[in-house]
């Protein structure tokens, strides 16, 4: 039988260490909503989302209350819209109409983000993919809850450099279209390589075509818990450090597994995966950077940061895998800048640079995330940053991503306030030298030699 110390430990994690389940994300297949007529297509999309996800928010709140663990976000991910809108969208404006329909559906069911305004163009772009991509700036400017992602490469296909070049321009246009909100639109737009089909986390969530009609995916969190536990083992060996992180990750993930199974049962929708992620929030102590400091670094970004992050990421997976039968999504430690107070502090004091963050993305679960850069950064430079991240993902067979915000009218030394979960960020300097001639070549970078496994 459970004893009082175990009960107190669990409640302390929730009350003092910010333990929560970060998101219950319902994946919804919209392929059946395709129609030659745009109005009909929008109607079908609205109806399918508002029917399937009708009880999602209430169910999340019920589970949260009964078990006494916060479930911060309830979200929806959908089939990449470039597939759904292919037969009815003839212009980018047609796609914007779908985006606005999705936004209405998100508001109707009460979720705080809906992801999947997406295109998968890792090898080539269809006409529909390109129309969708070109609609992103306007879609982001005229909706509140829609997240957009574009997958521009994979280990199997190589990198679609035409898409990389286009995305540099689209990010600039999105920043311009949302400049009255500190270019917030770019905070809801991510460019990926090796994007998973079952990711529950925004902005990169979409419901891949390999998935069932509807599915429940859950993203767990808990950097604050790991951080607190590590305070008790200062100076111990790496073995003790690893063992402690692993055990903590196990406990955190078990909560997510329970919530996922319960949500799946109550909603009558199959359980997909648990995403084992340490996702920080701007709350004090709920920081991945603080964990790196607990490992023994003065600041995130100091020499040793990549090794400490690699260790952390691996132990989170090892502990988490034991706790859940089905693990997927991004799974690992997130290193967003604006959403993590420790990272913000490290950037502000000069310990953490864009280049060091890039190195860290080789061993963490995603990539350059929520990074504000000067608004006058050229589109080709942004494409260069995307290409570098995609190359890291492609060669290392991992997911990488770029969610970067060229804040219109701001430059190094300024601060950008996004609000809520997206936090705030200091504008970081970007290497001034040009890569335009490289980016302006046409075509794609071939798949790496180790992708030929047949």
């Amino acid at each position, binding site marked *: *039988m*459970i*004893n*009082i*110390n*175990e*009960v*107190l*430990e*669990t*409640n302390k994690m929730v009350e003092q260490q910010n333990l929560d389940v970060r998101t219950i994300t319902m994946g919804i297949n919209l392929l059946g909503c395709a129609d030659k007529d745009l109005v009909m297509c929008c109607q079908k999309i609205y109806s399918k989302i508002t029917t399937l996800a009708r009880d999602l928010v209430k169910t999340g709140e019920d589970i949260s*209350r*009964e*078990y*006494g*663990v916060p479930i911060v976000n309830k979200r929806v991910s959908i089939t990449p819209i470039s597939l759904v809108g292919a037969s009815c969208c003839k212009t980018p404006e047609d796609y914007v109409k779908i985006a606005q329909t999705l936004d209405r559906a998100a508001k109707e069911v009460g979720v705080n983000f809906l992801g999947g305004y997406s295109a998968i163009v890792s090898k080539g772009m269809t006409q529909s993919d390109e129309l969708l991509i070109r609609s992103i700036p306007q879609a982001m400017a005229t909706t509140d809850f829609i997240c957009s992602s574009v997958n521009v490469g994979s280990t199997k296909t190589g990198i679609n450099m035409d898409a990389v070049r286009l995305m540099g321009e689209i990010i600039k246009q999105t920043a311009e279209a949302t400049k009255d909100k500190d270019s917030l639109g770019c905070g809801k737009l991510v460019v990926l390589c090796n994007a998973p089909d079952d990711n529950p986390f925004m902005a990169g969530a979409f419901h891949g075509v390999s998935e069932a009609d509807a599915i429940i995916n859950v993203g767990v969190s808990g950097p604050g818990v790991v951080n607190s536990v590590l305070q008790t083992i200062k100076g111990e060996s790496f073995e003790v450090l690893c063992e402690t992180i692993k055990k903590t990750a196990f*406990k955190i993930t*078990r*909560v997510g*597994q*329970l919530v996922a199974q319960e949500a799946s049962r109550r909603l009558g929708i199959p359980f997909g995966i648990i995403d084992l992620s340490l996702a920080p929030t701007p709350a004090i102590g709920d920081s991945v950077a603080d964990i790196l400091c607990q490992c023994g670094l003065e600041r995130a970004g100091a020499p040793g940061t990549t090794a400490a992050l690699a260790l952390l990421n691996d132990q989170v997976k090892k502990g988490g895998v*034991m706790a859940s039968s089905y693990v997927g999504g991004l799974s690992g430690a997130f290193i967003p800048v604006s959403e993590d107070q420790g990272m913000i502090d490290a950037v502000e004091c000069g310990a953490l640079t864009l280049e060091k963050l890039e190195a860290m993305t080789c061993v963490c679960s995603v990539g350059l995330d929520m990074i504000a850069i000067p608004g006058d950064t050229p589109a080709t430079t942004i494409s260069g940053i995307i290409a570098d991240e995609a190359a890291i993902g492609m060669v290392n067979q991992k997911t990488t991503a770029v969610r970067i915000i060229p804040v219109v009218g701001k430059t190094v030394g300024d601060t950008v306030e996004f609000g809520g979960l997206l936090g705030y960020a200091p504008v970081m300097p970007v290497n001034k030298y040009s890569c335009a001639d490289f980016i302006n070549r046409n075509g794609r970078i071939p798949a790496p030699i180790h992708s030929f496994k047949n």
Partner: protein
Amino acid sequence: MNKTIITVVGKDTKGIIARVCTYLAENEVNILDISQTIVGGYFNMMMIVDMSQLAVHYEQAQNDLEELGRTMGVQVKCQREEIFEKMHRI
């Protein structure tokens, strides 16, 4: 069996257990185990109870117990047992 864990945390005062138990008895809740400890000068009590015969809605019982705690200056939480079981048992 529908096991729930009730925790009471706060400054020790007379009659805490008595009042919580009275509420539980009146609402058809059977107590399976009680333990208590003092941590950092605070009174900590945990009850494992069976709520399968609960006379009111679960959410109602949670709110009532929380309110009861408030009148005594302590925090009363009522959570389904599985969250602890899952976290601490393989």
